[in-house]
């Protein structure tokens, strides 16, 4: 006696009945004769077809109703199934309310002892749901395939994990000029231009990743090479996916030659205009400054009161002209400086500035305290900002005392967020500025007379004020002689 039998019998046959009932309900099977007529059907079978058992006994099995699966019925009667022992397959049948059903079916012939005829046990599993999902999938993937193939404007290229082209669309074919057979199986680097032409795929991916991080942009601009070896600019997106344990890359591109050509032309025209403005401003400035030089000389000479009056009038005229030309000049400066802007990474700029400054011996003993508010985001011209910090720190260092045991030169730099602007403060504990000098330190070529300072050319702070000016900012200075100075620069956000 095995365990199941013992268990069943030990329960006085009741459990045995219960198990049989459960099997009846939950399994789908039937017994057919060689004509396909039902001799027995399980409850599960009747439920599947939604018919009472009495309606189907002795009748053609619902598996074969509506002329379905006629071949199989033939198999039963021609005894071909008897010789094949077992039939396995999925039958398409009409179920409830004529809805199509897919039934996974096993048919086993069983020989009847008393008349040596065969009956057939049919065991079923309803796989309709699975089948429908699968066909859904097939439909949508063939639709994708169709879209993918038919798009003529965009370039779509699929690569395997090693960067070999395994698929491409009509748009790609059109842009690159290769036929599919020429390019499928080839490394994608054959299609790339510029620095990526014939590059290792791993290098290519690495560069793309760096570019993407640098520009904080999914869409990159990239040059490709067509069959004729001509390079063209594209907008480029790459994606990666994993399927059945392998990596694939999808590249989507758009040829932007036309757009780039227009952009370049616009850029060139703008540059030309800016240059013209700058040149005219400069050309105007030159004769005015010559005239000013002559007037200066005339003033020094002995003059009659009448001539003095005339010189004054000439001076006023020249002053007006200078206001005009300097306005023109300034606007051309701003154009020039503002044309390139990006988000300023203060930390990096200051690190770079200090690196340059520290290469010089004098900076060795300095203590730099740097506090940058991380929430500051500021868009400006990075070169100007770099020069600004360079000159501010250089100036702070220049006017400090030599390091001694009692006093270390300290420079504090803070960058704070303010409403609509950024505030930059550079303080030193150095020699400070005398009252008589403080209003003149931003003048070009002005050098305060301070002892033991190295070579100064009177330009550093002038450049600082010029940059602050061109960024529409403000600069202020607070200083106590012999105690130190603070330079406070506020720069507004660009609207």
């Amino acid at each position, binding site marked *: 006696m095995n365990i199941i039998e013992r268990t069943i019998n030990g329960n006085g046959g009741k459990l045995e009945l219960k198990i049989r009932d459960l099997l009846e309900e939950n399994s789908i099977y039937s017994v057919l004769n060689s004509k396909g007529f039902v001799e027995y059907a399980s409850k599960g079978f009747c439920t599947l077809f939604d018919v009472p058992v009495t309606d189907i006994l002795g009748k053609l099995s619902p598996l074969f109703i509506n002329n379905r699966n006629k071949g199989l019925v033939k198999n039963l009667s021609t005894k071909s199934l008897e010789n094949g022992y077992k039939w396995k397959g999925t039958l398409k049948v009409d179920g409830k309310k004529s809805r199509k059903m897919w039934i996974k079916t096993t048919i086993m012939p069983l020989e009847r002892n008393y008349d040596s005829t065969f009956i057939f046990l049919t065991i079923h599993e309803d796989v309709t749901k699975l089948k429908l999902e699968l066909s859904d999938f097939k439909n949508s993937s063939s639709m994708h395939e169709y879209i993918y193939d038919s798009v003529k404007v965009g370039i779509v290229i699929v690569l395997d994990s090693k960067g070999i082209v395994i698929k491409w669309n009509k748009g790609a074919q059109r842009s690159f000029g290769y036929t599919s057979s020429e390019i499928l199986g080839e490394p994608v680097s054959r299609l790339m231009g510029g620095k990526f032409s014939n590059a290792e795929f791993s290098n290519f991916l690495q560069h793309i990743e760096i570019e993407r991080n640098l520009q904080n942009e999914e869409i990159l601009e990239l040059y490709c090479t067509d069959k004729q070896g001509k390079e063209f600019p594209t907008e480029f997106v790459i994606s990666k996916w994993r399927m059945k344990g392998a990596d694939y890359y999808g590249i989507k591109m758009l040829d932007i030659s036309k757009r780039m050509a227009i952009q370049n032309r616009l850029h060139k025209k703008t540059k030309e205009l800016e240059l013209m403005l*700058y040149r005219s401003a*400069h050309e105007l*400035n*030159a004769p*005015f*400054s*010559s005239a*000013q*030089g*002559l007037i*200066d*000389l005339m003033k*020094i000479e002995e003059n009659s009161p009448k001539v003095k009056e005339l010189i004054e009038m000439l001076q006023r005229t020249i002053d007006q002209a200078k206001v005009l030309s300097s306005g023109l*000049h300034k606007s051309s*400066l701003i154009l*020039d*400086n503002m044309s390139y802007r990006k988000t300023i990474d203060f930390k990096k700029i200051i690190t770079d500035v200090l690196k340059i400054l520290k290469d010089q011996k004098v900076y060795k003993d300095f203590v730099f305290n740097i506090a940058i508010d991380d929430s500051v985001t500021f868009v400006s011209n990075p070169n100007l900002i770099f*020069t600004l910090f360079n000159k501010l720190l250089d100036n702070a260092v220049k006017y400090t005392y030599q390091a001694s045991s009692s006093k270390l030169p300290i420079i504090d730099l803070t960058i704070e967020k303010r409403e609509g602007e950024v505030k930059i403060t550079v303080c030193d504990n150095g020699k400070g500025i005398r009252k008589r000098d403080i209003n003149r330190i931003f003048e*070009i*070529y002005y*050098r305060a007379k301070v002892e033991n300072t190295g070579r100064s*050319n*009177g*330009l550093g702070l*002038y*450049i600082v004020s*010029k*940059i602050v000016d*061109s960024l529409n900012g403000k600069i202020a200075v607070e200083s106590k002689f012999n105690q130190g100075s603070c330079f406070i620069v506020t720069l507004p956000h660009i609207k």
Partner: protein
Amino acid sequence: MKINFMLIDDNEIDLFINRKYIEKEVGNAEVRTFQKAKNALKYLQCYENDKEDHDHFYPDIILLDINMPEMNGFEFLNALGNLRDTRILRIKTYLLSSSSHLNDILDAENHDNCEGFINKPLTGRKLEQILDEIFPKPKQ
């Protein structure tokens, strides 16, 4: 002490103004003017070639205009940097321009052969500052 000036500017009037200020500020000065940077360079190259046909004028200070046709101030500075004669290495060169374009100022300041940048027109005060820088007064 005699101070020798070499003035290079394509504008005659500016040369005149600069010469006048030098004569006023510096008691003992000799001034040579050049309207073309190329000619000034040729003159200086004579030391290098050790030709004896020049007249032994060695400038202490060069005031050099930036914007000139043919050879501009920066081109002149670069060419000057290639000359190795000690008498040339001693020369203090200042760039002059009526423009105060930031890039010009930065370029002038960063140039090895250039002492500084002067915004035109030259004045007595600006000249005085240059002289103070080159010939510091002894401390009292």
